[in-house]
């Protein structure tokens, strides 16, 4: 893989991620992630923050070896390690900013001091450490631009800065572990332990040594330079000891706390645990204790890669993946989440390459490695790709800007509609009413009104009550229902001459060839307003293109609802005269509000009006309990023993005038 290919991929990923970040600013993380209220920490927090802090541990670890312990062997890596740490922490800051709900509140810890919050401590440590890393790295920049005075001041303050960096890292690396002590009922016991702070700190040092080795080897390979293997093999040895300590502490703790059996269970969490600990520690330890592997570029590269992936998995597990079992939720990151995390990492990688090329980060990687020799060669006029993307500086600018733009645009095209237009509510389809036989207990004196009882069990005397067929109104079929005595309503509200006169009061609009269309047919969503017009059906029925002019009569006007023929112009009997339901808003003529809303509105309005005229006074007549009588839900266990015969309700038009069953 050449440097150019890697940079091309990085630019593309950066473009992909940038669009998602910008979109996320519009409508919040919910519009671009699969996170839920039950599982609010996913890839962004686990991978982009918790894991990256651990990987960035390279900065303080190597600085400690070089400046405190005076191990000059690691001198060649210290600048790279500091910049790597800096980039990790900047990525953490960027990732965290766009992960929290109200993103601009990322700065709130500066003046809203919460002394009881672990996150408050983590936030301050990371902010301060970021400053320390910046000052440490400015050493390299000052040297590059020969700023002698600044350099002198920086050199004098090196020791103070390094000590501050180590202290701050010790604090926040461990307190990130402390944070998850607060989740004993979410986190699987294989991960949740009181020693999490210790484990986080030790593993961060161990993995830090390996990630900087990995990055150094990768960069030197890309630029065809000789990596400082003496330093890398030394770091690998130290890291083997640190990781071994980590494994010992972790397994001992699990066994000591009596959770050893969990290690041999046959389930997903145990498998996850063994994969994680093998990748992050066991395999690396096994190889790195042998000198032959420690001194081989290829071996260290692959071992370090394994360990880095494994340790990242560990942090992702603690932050979210190992909580899926106890929270009974499922989560796999959306592509948008991958795009943001990978995009931020890719942008960090590009900055690292820039620093490698311009700031002399590694001693063995000189200008000769960075600048290829210019060899003009013969120009082929027919090879447009070489003409456009060839050459050095400008060819690269052409290529990278192109993939960046394509990445940005592709991401915009692929974004879910929620991210563009805002999160849309979920639809809840409604169903028609069913019929059921109920025992009707008429109102007694001044007590509550008519009561229904369903099922074959219950008190004595119920069977004496009249059996009636009533409608079971359960729009979204969730098992909670209201019983509605349709026949009684029809009879009570009927006119003296015409028994059918009462229908129109509620059935205010009918479908073609229908006399009393059921509510759910138009109010087809439980909560949302829906459009009643079916354009495709009309286009089909009116004979395709020739039929357009039936409704779109003015050819010079845009073909929209406002410029088209009114529905009632053709469907004359659609709106029933004398209905209780009057649509006053002209723009709402052919929209049906949510089922629940219209049911409540219709029943309540009528009951309120009729309450004063009741033959038997009933103060609950216009209240919730009049209809919601607390009958057992269909999901209730009662129905395992009791029986209730529920039948489909058929209207006259469905059954050709058969009436209800």
């Amino acid at each position: 893989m050449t440097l150019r290919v890697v940079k091309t991929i990085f630019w593309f990923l950066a473009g992909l991620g940038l669009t998602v970040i910008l979109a996320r600013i519009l409508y919040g993380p919910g519009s671009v992630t699969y996170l839920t209220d039950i599982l609010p920490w996913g890839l962004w927090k686990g991978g982009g923050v918790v894991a990256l802090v651990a990987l960035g541990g390279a900065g303080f670890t190597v600085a400690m070896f070089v400046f405190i312990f005076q191990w000059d062997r690691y001198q060649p890596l210290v600048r790279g390690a500091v910049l790597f740490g800096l980039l990790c922490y900047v990525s953490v800051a960027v990732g965290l900013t766009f992960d929290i709900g109200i993103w601009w509140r990322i700065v709130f810890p500066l003046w809203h001091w919460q002394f009881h919050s672990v996150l408050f401590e983590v936030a301050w440590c990371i902010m301060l450490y970021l400053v320390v890393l910046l000052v440490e790295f400015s050493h390299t920049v000052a040297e590059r631009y020969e700023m002698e005075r600044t350099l002198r001041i920086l050199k004098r303050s090196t020791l103070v800065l390094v000590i501050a960096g180590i202290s701050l890292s010790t604090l926040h690396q461990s307190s990130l572990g402390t944070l998850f002590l607060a989740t004993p009922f979410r986190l699987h016991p294989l991960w949740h332990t009181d020693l999490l702070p210790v484990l986080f700190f030790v593993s961060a040092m161990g993995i830090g040594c390996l990630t900087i080795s990995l990055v150094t080897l990768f960069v030197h390979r890309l630029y065809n330079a000789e990596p400082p293997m003496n330093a890398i093999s030394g770091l690998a040895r130290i890291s083997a000891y640190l990781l071994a300590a980590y494994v010992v502490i972790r397994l001992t703790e699990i066994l000591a706390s009596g959770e050893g059996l969990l290690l041999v269970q046959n389930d997903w969490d145990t498998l996850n645990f063994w994969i994680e600990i093998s990748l992050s520690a066991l395999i690396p330890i096994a190889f790195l204790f042998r000198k032959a592997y420690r001194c081989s570029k290829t071996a260290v590269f692959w071992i370090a890669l394994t360990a880095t992936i494994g340790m990242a998995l560990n942090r992702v597990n603690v932050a979210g993946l190992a909580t899926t079992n106890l929270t009974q939720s499922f989560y796999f990151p959306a592509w948008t989440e991958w795009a943001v995390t990978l995009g931020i990492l890719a942008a960090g990688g590009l900055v690292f390459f820039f620093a490698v090329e311009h700031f002399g980060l590694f001693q063995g990687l000189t200008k000769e490695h960075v600048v290829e020799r210019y060899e003009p060669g013969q120009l082929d006029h027919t090879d447009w790709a070489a003409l456009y993307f060839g050459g050095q500086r400008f060819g690269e600018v052409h290529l990278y800007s192109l993939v960046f733009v394509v990445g940005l645009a592709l991401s915009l095209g692929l974004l879910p509609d929620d991210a563009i237009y805002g999160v849309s509510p979920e639809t809840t389809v409604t169903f028609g009413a069913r019929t059921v036989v109920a025992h009707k207990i008429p109102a007694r004196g001044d007590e509550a009104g008519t009561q229904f009882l369903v099922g074959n069990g219950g008190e004595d005397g119920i069977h004496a009550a009249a059996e009636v067929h009533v409608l079971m109104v359960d729009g979204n079929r969730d098992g909670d229902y209201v019983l509605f005595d349709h026949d009684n309503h029809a009879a009570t509200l009927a006119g003296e001459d015409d028994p059918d006169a009462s229908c129109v009061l509620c059935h205010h609009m009918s479908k073609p060839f229908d006399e009393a269309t059921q509510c759910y047919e138009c109010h087809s969503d439980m909560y949302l307003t829906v459009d009643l017009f079916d354009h495709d059906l009309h286009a089909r029925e009116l004979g395709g293109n020739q039929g357009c002019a039936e409704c779109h009569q003015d050819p010079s006007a845009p073909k929209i609802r406002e410029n088209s023929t009114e529905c009632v112009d053709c469907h004359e009997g659609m709106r029933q005269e004398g209905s209780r339901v009057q649509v006053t808003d002209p723009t709402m003529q052919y929209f049906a509000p949510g089922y629940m809303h219209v049911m409540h509105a219709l029943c309540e309005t009528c009951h309120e009006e009729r309450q004063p005229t009741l033959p038997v006074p009933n103060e609950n007549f216009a209240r919730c309990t009049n209809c919601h009588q607390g009958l057992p839900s269909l999901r209730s266990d009662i129905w395992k023993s009791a029986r209730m015969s529920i039948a489909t309700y058929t209207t006259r038009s469905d059954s050709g005038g058969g009436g209800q069953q």
Partner: protein
Amino acid sequence: MPVEQWLEWTRGPLFRFALAVMVLGLIRLVVLNGINLISLVRHSYDKKMPVGVVARDTLRWLFPFTRVPASQRFFTLVSVAFHLCIIIVPIFLAGHILLWQRGLGLSWPAMHQTLADYMTLFAIATGLLLFGKRVSTHLTRSLSRVQDYLLPLIIVTTFASGYLAVHPAVNPAGYDATMLVHALSGDLVLILIPFSKLSHMLLLPISHLVSELGWHLVPEAGTRVARALGKEGEPV
């Protein structure tokens, strides 16, 4: 997937992608050309830029009737009419503005539908004329690349399918299919803008600037380049 869903896809995700490619791609071209311009000025012999002259010449060249040979007056007019129609109609068509309003809440005054109809027909006719002109003579054929033939045809396809979609009475095909062709070809035009000669919609002034500045190169620059490449005395 049924046709309606494909239609939604071309009007939603694909359109967003195409529009972003067009806008960002054009910005990229301007930036790249800007870098080119800066390096050109930096390497030029005479760093004094005749800003007034360049601005005046650029504007003069943007006006299409500057220096037209007598034989080409008709096709110059055709070309200008074609350009005006294909720029104005898509932006100010009432149906398009409705889509913008529905999606992003943006809206601006629309042109009258009848005028849009005539301008669409005019765009189709002039586009076909220009295409015919290009294939008719040996001279124009020898000057033409593949994209010079394809681009007018794609644009004409967009306008023709748009016209048919608005006028179902004269449309032999179904509405959804026509609309799909319209949206797909429209998206294709947007995507092609930054990668084809269509980018002249933004780069034309810049290319004029470059050609004006080009005269200020160091004398003997070509010989020096040849010497640097070690190809002195060879024919270019």
